[in-house]
């Protein structure tokens, strides 16, 4: 008995499904669609049929042929997909292995603070000043209303070097960043008077004092701020510095207080203390800055008329800000160059 078309189609499907490789599938295809294939043979047998029967039988066979071809295409695609999947599986790698090549270094935490301070003050138009670290007596002291022998000089123990300035006084390592504000203001006084451009600057940098223990380093960093114009008041100082602390520590949950103090170069003078409302340092007043309205004698040394120009100045320790920001307890870590510490700021 001869197979029905359906049986041929079913057999072809079964055979296609059974093969698992491309060449075997092509062999199976030949058995149905090839020259001597089952369906090809049936088509050849049509010639013996009467015309009406030929037509209907031919259509049936062609439908069967299409069904088989479709099954073949599907199986081919399946096998190709499986082959690709197998190849990709074989090519899999351990994605958890470390990447190749070099790592990345890092910026020193104190410099990171320096940069943030520049950015924060830069956002309201503060310029950045520079200046020498071996400094003349006049810029470090006298210009700041701190003449020789003044008792306030003992507030800062000064390193001197074996060279004299053009005034005959020994050169020194600047004890604060304030000389930079004097230098900057003298350079920009004319622009203030003639063009009304305010003197608005911060001066970050290294400073030096004869002091070395767990909480003092003989070299450290300060940032000085200065804003001189026709009506910059103590209330403005409070506003600017409070805003700065909130931006720097990225929280409004801190309290700032200004406390009367004395510096030769400001009057009224204030120590600025801050207190966090939460966290490990919560509830403790922390000294953060010295500040005040620039003393008229200093404004005069800027080359400006203190009757007309007033403003504020402040000076903060960058190490102090950094320690509070990141919760660092030991000042010495900043100057040891220990990669185990520095890597944490990569």
């Amino acid at each position, binding site marked *: 008995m001869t197979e029905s078309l359906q049986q041929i189609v079913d057999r072809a499907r079964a055979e296609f499904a059974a093969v698992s490789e491309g060449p075997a599938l092509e062999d199976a295809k030949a058995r149905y669609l090839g020259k001597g294939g089952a369906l090809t043979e049936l088509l050849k047998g049509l010639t013996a049929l009467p015309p009406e029967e030929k037509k209907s039988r031919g259509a049936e066979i062609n439908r069967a042929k299409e069904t088989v071809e479709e099954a073949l295409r599907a199986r081919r695609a399946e096998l190709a997909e499986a082959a690709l999947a197998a190849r990709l599986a074989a090519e899999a790698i351990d994605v958890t292995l470390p990447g190749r090549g070099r790592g990345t270094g890092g910026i020193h935490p104190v410099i990171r603070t320096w940069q943030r301070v520049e950015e924060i003050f830069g956002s309201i138009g503060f310029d950045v000043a520079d200046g020498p*670290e*071996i400094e003349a007596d006049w810029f470090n002291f006298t210009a700041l209303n701190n003449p020789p022998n003044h008792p306030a000089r003992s507030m800062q123990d000064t390193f001197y070097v074996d060279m004299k300035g053009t005034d005959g006084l020994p*050169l020194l390592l600047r004890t604060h960043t304030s000389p930079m504000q004097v230098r900057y203001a003298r350079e920009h006084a004319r622009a203030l008077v003639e063009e009304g451009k305010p003197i608005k600057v911060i001066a970050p940098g290294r400073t030096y004092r004869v002091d070395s223990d767990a909480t003092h380093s003989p070299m450290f960093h300060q940032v000085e701020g200065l804003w001189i114009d026709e009506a910059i008041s103590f209330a403005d100082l409070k506003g600017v510095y409070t805003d700065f602390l909130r931006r720097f520590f990225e929280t409004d949950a801190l309290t700032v207080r200004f406390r*009367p103090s004395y510096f030769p170069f400001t009057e009224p003078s204030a120590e600025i203390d801050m207190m966090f409302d939460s966290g490990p340092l919560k509830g403790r007043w922390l000294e953060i800055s010295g500040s005040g309205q620039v003393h008229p004698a200093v404004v005069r040394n800027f080359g400006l008329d203190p009757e007309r120009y007033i403003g504020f100045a402040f000076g903060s320790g960058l190490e102090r800000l950094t320690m509070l920001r990141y919760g660092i307890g030991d000042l010495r870590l900043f100057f040891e160059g220990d990669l185990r510490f520095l890597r944490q700021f990569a």
Partner: protein
Amino acid sequence: MLIPESWLRTYCNPPLDTDQLAHALTMAGLEVESVRRGAPPFTRVVVGEIVSRGKHPNADRLSVCTVNVGEAAPLSIVCGAPNARAGIRVPCALVGAELPPGEDGKPFVIKQAKMRGVESAGMLCSARELGISDEASGLLELAPDAPIGQDLRTHLALDEAVFEIKLTPNRADALSVYGVAREVAAITGAALAPEPRRAISPTLTEVLPVRVEAPDLCGRFAGRVIRGVNARATTPAWMRERLERAGQRSISALVDISNYVMLELGRPSHVFDLDRVHGPVTVRWAREGERLELLNGQTVTLDASVGVIAAGDTVESLAGIMGGEATAVTLDTTNVYVEAAFWHPEAIQGRARRFGFATDAGHRFERGVDWATIPEHLDYLTGLILEICGGQAGPNDAQTLRLPERAPVTMRVARARKVIGIDIAADAMSAIFTRLGLAHTRAGSGESETITVTPPTYRFDLSIEEDLIEEVARIHGFDAIPSRPPLARAAMRARPEAERSLHTLRARLAGQDYFEVINYAFVDAAWETEVVGNADPIRLLNPIASQMAVMRSSLIPGLLANIRHNAHHRADRVRVFELGKVFRRDASVTDGPLTVAGVAQPLMIAGAAWGGALPEQWGAPKRAVDFYDVKGDLGAVLPPDARFARVQHPLLHPGRAACIRVADAVVGVLGELHPEHLARFDLTQAPIVFELDAAALQRLSLPTPKPVSRQPVVRRDLALVVEASVESERIVKTLSSAAPAFVQSLDVFDVYRGSGLSEGEKSVAIRILMQDFERTLSDSEIDEACQRLLSVATTELGARLRT
């Protein structure tokens, strides 16, 4: 400065508790750094009297004491102290008492206990066991009349607070208990008691003649002879306690009284042994070379900038600073000369510091001491001496020579408002001055109103308008001034595009796997002289340590020390950089906006790489970092036109060192550390180091882009064999000079030495990219160009084609 609270409150007693008072002082500018108490907390310790002392039956060193603590029955207490004896009154901790923690940090609770078989109902205490002092040699012996059974904290006033005040240098007037009381009155409005006074009726007529030769040194001088004093008199307990709480050790009655008056009223004085003062007294500037042995045992050589009190030809005292040993009072002194004077601050300032010490008197005089009350204070001092030491007083012999002026200071109300930034009413300002005890008058009204203050003689900090504005702000309260964001003209500010910030340079080096460090600018002198080759470094006159004695002229040795530090901590690969100034003597530098004559202080950026070229890892072979690795890293910070040339440098390997030029200026060096420096830094593998002028790296030019050709690119490679000494840059330059315009680039992509080449030869492979802007290049043009490059290489460099 230590101010005992109870002493302070005898002059001004505001209705504030201890902490509120401390806060009020702090917020007025007299910063209370700490509030000290007489002893840490303890409970149930009372005054006890040892009624009898018996031997302990089982221990030679212990005794069994019968102690009366004011209760019905005496207590039996075992005690090991050597000074335990019948009749003395000592602190007695009762059963249940909690004593300050010992070294283990745990509170110590007294229990009824058997000690070597004998019941003990408490403990007799030393000062150390109670945290009162470090005295631990025996029981703390109390006064013979101490009330038995009284709580010890009450008896010794151990809960009394002592304010530790950090006084700013402008507030000379507050350097005493009375001065602080005056301030408390101003801040709180509480009443201020008058200064203590003593009226003296002289019983002697004797006067010691004094001639003041230098009125610019001494503005007022008062002295008095007192005969027949008992220098061995005991300082009264109340005075001793006040002195001790104020941090002043009791020495002898005469010295204690002088110190007491200074602490109470801020009036330094000096007591001479009259019998040791020979000849007429003169007050004058010292003569060059005069010598004086001071009370502290130090002998100083004087000059004309220092004031003295002399008797006859002998200098007896450093004026306003310290007395001399020769005329100091002793326990045998019977006749004294007491002196109080006004020394001009400018005549005292800095003098003690020059001799390397500081004294309480000098500290006060260089800031300013009231001259008006000198005779009254001398009488007070005299009165205390007569009360405590007895004696007969001569007249108060005062002379006035030249006193500072107290010119009235005018404050414009409008100016004060402008500086402070808020509208304080003129009446409020006037009220503040009244509270401060500042006599003042008002004039004008509205915008032109002024207040004129005549500063009192005890205030040395009120001479300009701002001084008064500060007082207004301070007493008004800084807290009461709003924090106001300022209004300002908005003006943009931009950094030039062709300038890289230092932070950008830092970020770029960090991106190349270098960690930023910060090293001290002062270094070991040997680093400069022996490593960097700077024979004459700038020296510190007062270094804190010999390894921090000179200013560095190179950042590199510090980086080498960083490598050593990390290597000691087992790091096998260290890459660090620093950005900082270096310092060199340079006569060509003049004073300028950013310069100080004679000193070059350029900002440098330096780095060091040591260990593997890469961190040790699974996918790359291990290889030590070398010159070319770091040269590659520097691409991140150098301008594109930087050129390298061999150089000799004391820090660097002579064959592996380059100077770096940008636009013909040398901007730095790069190289391998010279092997002779390795041992100093405990290294075996040489680090690669660089140091560059940061300013040169900041300057860039703006990009000037050219259009891009759409024609095909042709690549040809040319492998040239040359002598090994021919530098690659010379090959490229030589070829470039002969290349037709369509040659876009000539780059070395391989260098080979070894088999196939003879000794002393190397093969350098050059990649040539050619492209015309207008048209496709023909084969013949390309071949011709290559031929031409080869022939130039042959004739100019002695090269041949590698086959």
